[in-house]
């Protein structure tokens, strides 16, 4: 994996200096402010200010669960949808990918470097946005109303660890497809699975709402991450410089 950090650093620099980054920052900024202001206000309207901690604890934990599942998922989804495959498509069309592969870098180092370069900025932005929403919900409403800070451990692990792991596995899978086939296929896979995940969270929030704050739900996320990660790892065994080069010339080996 020698040289992988160089690819990672360069690609992160490219993402941070791209127009796409500005667009993502604006979209997520608006969304985060909206959630940080809107959710505490809604809870206030719905539940009032005089709360019994024992009675409202499950409800508050579920509200928190919905927020901390949606926020990182939406942020990661927005970031990856915009950043994930366009740079690879450009590099394949204009030639830098061929030059990169003609160096001692391995195809796997390029894959991991590019996947991490998409994931890390998205994770940091998602982390900050989620933290802002959690703090806003607690400080603006839950703490004054109940005297307690709400963030159950399964929810914290889901939003800060398992869900990001799931997204990283998905990104790395999408990047493999972008490298060895048409980048549009990679992007389609990422968007399709992300929309599916958003749908799952929506369904769980609506029908199986009691699951959101549970360990089961956290472990489902972990299992999903392991499953996608295993698929990506398995497919990465067939990742070769020849496949990448031929696919960039329109030949999929």
């Amino acid at each position, binding site marked *: 994996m020698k040289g992988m950090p160089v690819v990672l650093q360069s690609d992160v620099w490219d993402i941070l200096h791209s127009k796409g980054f500005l667009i993502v920052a604006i979209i997520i900024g608006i969304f985060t402010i909206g959630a940080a202001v809107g959710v505490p206000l809604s809870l206030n309207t719905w539940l009032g200010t005089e709360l019994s901690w024992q009675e409202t604890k499950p409800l508050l934990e579920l509200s928190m669960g919905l927020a901390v599942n949606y926020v990182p998922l939406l942020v990661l989804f927005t970031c990856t949808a915009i950043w994930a495959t366009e740079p690879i498509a450009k590099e394949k069309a204009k030639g830098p990918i061929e030059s*990169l592969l003609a160096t*001692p870098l391995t195809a796997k180092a390029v894959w991991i470097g590019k996947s991490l370069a998409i994931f890390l900025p998205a994770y940091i932005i998602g982390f900050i946005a989620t933290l802002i929403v959690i703090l806003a919900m607690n400080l603006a409403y839950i703490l004054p109303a109940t005297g307690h800070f709400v963030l159950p451990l399964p929810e914290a692990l889901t939003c800060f660890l398992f869900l990001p792991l799931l997204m990283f596995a998905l990104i790395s899978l999408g990047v493999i497809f972008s490298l060895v086939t048409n980048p549009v296929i990679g992007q389609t896979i990422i968007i399709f699975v992300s929309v599916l995940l958003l749908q799952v969270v929506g369904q769980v929030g609506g029908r199986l709402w009691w699951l959101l704050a549970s360990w089961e739900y956290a472990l489902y996320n972990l299992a999903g991450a392991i499953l996608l990660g295993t698929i990506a790892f398995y497919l990465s065994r067939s990742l070769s410089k020849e496949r990448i080069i031929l696919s960039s010339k329109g030949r999929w080996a």
Partner: protein
Amino acid sequence: MRDIIKLEGISKQLGKREILRDVSFTVKQGDIFGYLGPNGAGKTTTIRILLGLLQLTSGKATILGEDVSRDEARRKVGFVLESDGLYDNKTAEENLWYYARIYGMAKPAERIDRILNLVELWDRAKDKVGTYSKGMRQRLALARAMTHNPELLVLDEPTAGVDPSGQIEVREVILNMAYKEERTIFLSSHNLDEVQRICNRIALIDRGEIKLYGELEQLRREMSGNKVEIETTEAITEPLFSELKSLSHLGLRERKDKTLIFVPQEGIRVPDIVSLLVRRGVEIEEVSRKKASLEEIYSAILKEVEPS
């Protein structure tokens, strides 16, 4: 001289199509090796194999004794591919730093300055590559190829698409790299004039097979068909021309103004022809053995292999 590139019977098949068939040649240390051939002949495929981008179907390819599939081989090679592979949104310096770090160079600043001077881009080092002309981009790509101080440079059509003045600049950079930096150069090109000017050895590939390989000067002599040109001070008279023509062993082929072109039969030496002409009162201005131009060689070889 050490063998820098050694290809031994390499073949490459993609699907049912055989792109390279039993290709063998050696590039020696210090060579500027010209790799010629029409479009689709297999030049770029050979280069991709040399750079470890494509795997061999059969045969053996080494660079400085290392198998081309090994990372060690790639550390010793600098390259300019068909597309320059530069990042438009980075400056020239940033592009070179990026590759220097990929090659694991600890302190590349001094080397990068030196290389940017060599390609005469030091004054544009901080400009984004997206603002460069094609010629400047090619010079920067050559600089990138040299950054990690490789022993071998593999250049795929480095002057393609560059205007004439840009071509001269790129050629100068290549010659500087060959002579000042003492690098071995493998140059794939369509430009026969360019190859004739700067290369000492060539290989000609067509439809995946090597059709001609060797020292350029020797090939030019061999392919000239032993032609001798004798330039006289005055144009020779018609009777003398007829007389010389009748002496078939001299092999007088052509008369162009004051120049006579002979293809002497075996055993006939050039001094014998000269002394005969002097005896007939002809004043000799210059005697030269004609060498075939690369264009003549190229056309002759490709014509030979054309299907009827």
